[in-house]
């Protein structure tokens, strides 16, 4: 009775709804946004934003692959080109234009139903610290995935 819809079918509809001003709760798959978002457990609340900034977690259509990702903006240029990277990745970035961003993840919804902001000052500070930890991210992620996630 519970339906799994492929991303390439569901996400264009989600982006259309965001463009119309709706908010969308979307379940997240994969581990590329650890430790802030746990795939197959958490959902995110998405909403369209007037502007997007470095540090925002966004749903975007990636230029290289033509696939949608929910990753963090790590760089933006004046011409609207955007570089994205998953918090749970240790290398590899994606590129898109700001017009290919469908919406911003406003909060994470945990399986308990608790909401955790992804946009308040505290969340942005944590994301900034995490970005600076990139050289040791490999080990931190291993610890998170093998120890902390198993305790959750």
């Amino acid at each position, binding site marked *: *009775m*519970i*339906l799994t*819809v*492929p991303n390439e*079918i*569901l996400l264009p*509809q*989600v982006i259309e*709804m965001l463009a119309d*001003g*709706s*908010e*969308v*709760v*979307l*379940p997240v798959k994969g581990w590329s946004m650890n430790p802030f978002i746990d795939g197959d457990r958490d*959902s995110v*609340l998405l909403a369209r934003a007037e502007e997007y900034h470095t540090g925002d977690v966004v749903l975007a259509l990636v230029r290289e692959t033509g696939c949608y990702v929910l990753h963090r903006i790590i760089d933006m240029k004046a011409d609207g080109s955007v570089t994205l990277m998953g918090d749970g990745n240790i290398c590899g970035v994606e590129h898109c234009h700001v017009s290919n961003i469908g919406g911003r993840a406003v909060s994470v*919804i945990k399986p308990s139903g608790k909401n955790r902001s992804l946009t308040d000052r505290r969340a942005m500070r944590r994301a900034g610290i995490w970005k600076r930890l990139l050289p040791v991210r490999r080990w931190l992620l291993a610890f998170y995935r093998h120890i902390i996630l198993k305790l959750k």
Partner: protein
Amino acid sequence: MKLKKGFKPRTICGEFILTPDSGRRADFSNMISMNPTARFLWESLQDRDFELDDMVGLLLGQYDVEDALARKDCTALIEEWTKAGLVE
């Protein structure tokens, strides 16, 4: 029992699905998929109190099916709908 309000019907991937929606928020984390028979019952039972016999009556009136089978299917459906939070 009664069908709960707050579920929006959509067609995605050719499937009839319900998502819990409140205001301008659509929730795709709890999508409920329905086959044509379940859809017919869900649409027919809007805004009214109903019991198992009402569902069975609707099925018998719409489909060429035996009473015992219709009753069995409706019992299973009520169980699924209850689990999915569709009925109150």
